[in-house]
C-alpha cells in the first residue's frame, strides 16, 4: 500500500520505545509532576460518571423497565416465581415454537437447582457448544434495566459459545441481580474477581443478533441467535 513516506513501509525496530517516546514528546504538559498520580488515582478509584435518571428507581420498577426494554429490542420475557419453575416454563417456550426437546447448558449451580428430572423426555447436556445445538441455556449474573441488557461471564458455568452458536438462546436471571445501570455490574465483577480483574469474557447482550447491512433494513438472526428468551426468576 502506498504510504506517506517510504520510512513507514519499513519495519521499525523497537516499536514500543519509539511510540512511547513520540507520545511523551508530543503530549501536552509532559513534565507535569502530577500526571502519574492522576492516572493512578483514576485507575484505583474508578469514579462513577453520569447515570441516566431512567436507571435510578425502586428495584421493582427497575425489573419492570428491564423487561420493557428487552422486549423493545425483540427479546421475549417470561417471569417465573422460582428456579424450580424453569423446566416447565422452558418446555412450554420450546413447544410453542416447535423447537426440539434438546438443550445445552453450562454447569451454573443456579441452573442445576431447577430440577431437570421434571423433563424426562428432554435431551439435556452440559458443556460448550460445537455448533449443532438448537438451544443454549445460560445464567446471567447481572442485568441493566436502562437498555434491557443481560451481562454474562465466561467459565465452565457459562461457556461463551452457548451465547452465540445455538439458534435460540435462553437466559435465566434472578430479579435481584437486575439493577438500573451497567456500573452496578462492574461492582459485582470486582467483588468476585478483585479490582482490576475480569473473567476471560464478559458479554453484554441486548436482544437477538441482527444486521442492517442489506439496504439498511433491520433483519434478525445474523450470525448469532435468531431468538433471545429471558426467564426472570422473582426470588
Amino acid at each position: 500500500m502506498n504510504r506517506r513516506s517510504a520510512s513507514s513501509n519499513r519495519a521499525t525496530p523497537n516499536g514500543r520505545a519509539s511510540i512511547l517516546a513520540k507520545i511523551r514528546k508530543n503530549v501536552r504538559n509532559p513534565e507535569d509532576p502530577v500526571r502519574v498520580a492522576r492516572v493512578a488515582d483514576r485507575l484505583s478509584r474508578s469514579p462513577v460518571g453520569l447515570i441516566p435518571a431512567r436507571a435510578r428507581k425502586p428495584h421493582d420498577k427497575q425489573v419492570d423497565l428491564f423487561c420493557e426494554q428487552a422486549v423493545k429490542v425483540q427479546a421475549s420475557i417470561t417471569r417465573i416465581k422460582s428456579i424450580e419453575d424453569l423446566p416447565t416454563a422452558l418446555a412450554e417456550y420450546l413447544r410453542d415454537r416447535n423447537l426440539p426437546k434438546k438443550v445445552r447448558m453450562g454447569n451454573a449451580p443456579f441452573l442445576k437447582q431447577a430440577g431437570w428430572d421434571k423433563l424426562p423426555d428432554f435431551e439435556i447436556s452440559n458443556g460448550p457448544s460445537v455448533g449443532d445445538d438448537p438451544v443454549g441455556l445460560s445464567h446471567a449474573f447481572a442485568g441493566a434495566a436502562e437498555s434491557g441488557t443481560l451481562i454474562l461471564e465466561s467459565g465452565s458455568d457459562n461457556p461463551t459459545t452457548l451465547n452465540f452458536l445455538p439458534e435460540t438462546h435462553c437466559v435465566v436471571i434472578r430479579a435481584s441481580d437486575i439493577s438500573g445501570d451497567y456500573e452496578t455490574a462492574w461492582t459485582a465483577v470486582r467483588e468476585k474477581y478483585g479490582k482490576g480483574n475480569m473473567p476471560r469474557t464478559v458479554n453484554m447482550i441486548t436482544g437477538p443478533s441482527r444486521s442492517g447491512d442489506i439496504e439498511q433494513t433491520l433483519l434478525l438472526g445474523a450470525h448469532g441467535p435468531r431468538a433471545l428468551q429471558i426467564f426472570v426468576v422473582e426470588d
Partner: protein
Amino acid sequence: MQITSPYFKEKSSEALKDANLQKAMGNVERGFIDKRANAAANLPEFEALRDRAKEIKDHVLDHLDLYLENYEEKVQETGGRVHWAAGAQDARNIILDICKRANAKTVTKGKSMIAEEIAINEHLERNGIEPIETDLGEYIIQLRGEAPSHIIAPAVHVNKEEVEADFRRSHRHLPPGRNLEDPTSLLSEARSVLRDKFLAADVGITGANFLVAETGTSIIVTNEGNGDLTQILPRVHIVLASIEKIVPTLEDVSQILRVLARSATGQDMSVYTTFSTGPRRAEDPDGPEEYHVVLLDNGRSDMLGTEFQDMLRCIRCGACMNHCPVYNAVGGHSYGWVYPGPMGAVLTPTLIGVEKGGHLPNASTFCGRCESVCPMRIPLPKMMRHWREKEFERHLTPDGMRRGLLLWAWMAKHPKLYHAGSRLVINMLGMIGSRKGSFKRLPLAGGWTEHRDLPVPEGQTFQQQWAARRRNSKVGQAA
C-alpha cells in the same frame, strides 16, 4: 488498497451519475438520521453524556503514554501479549508472524477499519493465508473486491439485487434455482456459508472499540455476533487496535457506550458488547488459547499536541458521514481511501499526507451538521479549515484558485474598491441578462453553470440595499 483521494473531484462526478449508487445512498437518511435523532431525544442526559465522553478522551490523550503502559501490564498479567506497531508494515509483519506460527490456513475477521488501514487482507493473501470477512457488509464487499464505503455500514453503496448477483456468482455449490429475492434469504445464506468458516478458522482477527487500562480488556461492539464467533472459536485471537482506543476504567467505557450506539444506529445499545481479557483460563471450556494485541500508531502520536489532537477522540460511530450532505451525494468511495465523510476528510490527510488527501477537506459546505451530531464533540469543520490553510500554505492549491483567492483577499481588504467592483459587475450582469432571467453559461463561472443556471442579478448590491435600509430607518426614527 489503491489510494484515489487525489481524484476526489473526478470520482465524485462519476458517483453523481451512478444511478445504482444514488438509489443505495437514499437509504442513509432513512436508516440513520431519524433513528439517531429519536435515540438522542429519548435520553434526557444525552448532551451531558457527550460532554462526559469528550472529557474522558481528552484526559486519556493527555496521559496516553501512562495509560498504555498500564494497559500493557494488565494484558501481560492475564497471559496475553502486546505487540507495538509503529507503522502499517510493522503491524502486517507482526500479524503474519502470529498466523504463520499458528500454521494458519484460514483467518476469520471481525470488522476493523484499522485492518483496512494496514491492508492486512492483501498481505495475508500474498502469503498464502485466506482472510474471510464475517461481518455481512464486509463479506459482501469482499466478494465484490471493493473497499468499505462507510465505517459502520461498509456495503451501504450496494443494492440488494447486486448482493443477490454476488451470492449467485460466489456460492456456486448451492442450487442455482434457489430464491434469493427476500433480504432474509440473503442473510440466511450468508449465515450458513460463514458458519462453516467460523468453525474451521485457525486464527480470528478483530478490531477493538475500546481498550480498558484498568483491566487489560479489549472491547468490541457489534450487532451480528460475527465478531464474537471470530474471537471465541479459533485457537488464536488477534486484536488489532490503534493506540487512542484506550479508556481508563469500566465506568468510563460505560459513559461512552451510552453515546456510541445512539449516535451510530440509534440503538440504546448495540446487541453485543464483548469484553475480552487474555486467553482462556484453566477452567474455561471455550475461548482462544492465545491472545495477542497489536497496538498500532501509524501517525497518531504525531497528531498529539497539534491542532488535530481532537480527532483522536473519534469513536468511529459514523454519525458525521450520515449527516453530511457531501457524503450523502457522492458516497464513501469518492473519498478514495479508508475513511470517508467529514472524519475521513480530517483523518486521511494526517495518515496519507496532505499531498494525497488534501482535496478531501475541500469537500465540505461547512454546514456544521457533522460537529453538531458528533458524540465526542470533535470540531470537524474547524479542522477541515486547518487543512485548507495548510494546503494553501504549501502551494498545493491549483494556481488559478490561488490567484483568484489572492485577488479576492486584496479586494476584501479595500472595501471601497470592493463595493465599486461588485456594483459594476452586478450592473453589467443585470444589463446583459435583463431579458433572459438567468444565465445558462457564463465565462469564469463554468463550475456553477455546468450544473445549474445562474439567476440574473436584479437591482442593487447587498451593500447598497443595507445602506438604503439604514437611511430609511433613521428617517423613520426622526419622524
